[in-house]
């Protein structure tokens, strides 16, 4: 019988290994799987590469993982935030490397990785420092840059509801990077508020089909990053 539900966030991330590439969903606090990230902090793996749009805020969630010096590289479109010095300090000290990627190129590289497309051409960033050293090519008189698909050893994603087959629904703009990252993760792990039986989700409304999801964890009342930051919370 197919049942992708695991008992806890700790169990869900137990096999993350040193040096793993990990995609983390979220745009700002929306869609950030804080409980999975905190479980990863507890789990202890090191030298991680994190693929995520941002680098977290305050000293919780993604920023706390960075602060614990567990991340050697981030692949990211916007690592700055108003209320965190974690990434800036690590970047300036050389402890964490940055691969800066335009946001749309990041999203498309992740989708391509999940869709079996090793590389594609995009107009974004042509002629800018972010295309320096990259192969360019003309199509119909316009110039495009070659970008490569991205895959991850693990994807950590926040959804709203799931069934035990791994079908996922999201909440509003928390959907953001979740669906492409579910496609691109060799092991995709999704935390949701509610886990239901197969048949309880309308097959017309499923956003991420279960084939892209390996593990589902129920987190009934997930924390909001901005509330934790406002309260001065840190992790661990």
């Amino acid at each position, binding site marked *: 019988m197919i049942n992708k539900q695991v008992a806890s966030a700790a169990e869900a991330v137990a096999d993350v290994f040193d040096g793993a590439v990990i995609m983390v969903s979220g745009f700002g606090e929306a869609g950030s799987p804080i409980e999975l990230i905190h479980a990863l902090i507890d789990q202890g793996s090191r030298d991680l590469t994190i693929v995520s749009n941002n680098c977290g805020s305050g000293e919780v969630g993604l920023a706390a993982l960075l602060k614990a010096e567990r991340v050697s590289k981030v692949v990211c479109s916007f690592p700055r935030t108003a209320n965190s010095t974690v990434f800036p300090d690590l970047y300036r000290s050389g402890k964490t490397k940055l691969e800066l990627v335009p946001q749309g190129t990041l999203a498309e590289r992740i989708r391509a*990785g*999940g869709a*079996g*497309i090793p590389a594609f051409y995009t107009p974004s960033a042509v002629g800018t420092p972010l295309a320096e050293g990259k192969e360019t090519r003309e199509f119909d008189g316009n110039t495009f840059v070659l970008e490569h698909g991205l895959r991850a050893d693990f994807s950590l994603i926040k959804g709203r509801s799931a069934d035990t*087959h791994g079908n996922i629904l999201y909440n509003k703009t928390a959907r953001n990077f979740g669906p492409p990252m579910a*496609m691109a993760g060799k092991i995709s792990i999704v935390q949701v508020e509610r886990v239901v039986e197969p048949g309880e989700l309308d097959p017309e409304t499923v956003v991420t*089909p*279960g*084939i892209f999801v390996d593990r589902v964890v129920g987190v009934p009342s997930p924390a909001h990053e901005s509330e934790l930051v406002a309260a001065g919370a840190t992790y661990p």
Partner: protein
Amino acid sequence: MNQQSTQIGRTREQMAQRLALDIPDGSYVNLGIGIPELVAKFVPDGRELIYHTENGLLGMGPSPEEGQGDHELINAGKRQVTAIAGASYFHHADSFAMIRGGHIDLCVLGALQIAQNGDLANWSTGEPDAIPAVGGAMDLCAGVKSVYVITQHCTKQGEPKLVESCTYPLTGLGVITRVYTDLAVIEVTPAGFQLIELSPGIKFEYVKERTGAPLLPIPQHVAVK
């Protein structure tokens, strides 16, 4: 060479049933049109498989009851099907992202020819007046983790389908790992066609004569599954 009146080796249903034994519980499976479709009937008790149909459904169920079908709930063979609990619908680009991206565990296809290096030809006989049509076979070959073939061992004219190299236009290169026929189960290995199992009542020499490339006998240390 096959006799029409007396069945020699496995029937289509028996071939499908034999293949079904080898699909692990929880697999995501795409079944081609024809004999492959029959596999779904024979999933052993206690195993749950999820069927993908490339026209946009994961969790395909059996044919609907008479009069209960929907013209817009069909499989890749364009026949009406049903959706199981836990199913999902998606568009074609997402469906082939599943295929190309290596998310489907197993695909079962029919064949015109299978070469000893795992090449498959199953979309065109290359005849000049044929209407070319390929569908999703090339994508399935390129992207699915394992691609098995289920087919009669020989053509209706008695020609071997397992050959040294395909003479028909290729569908995929070096992708077939197992072949289930009426006569045998054969693995495609770096050393060529490796017999794994003979159908009941079939002798090695009988299969060998009907195979268009060297056939390695069942090795001593391989237990028959």
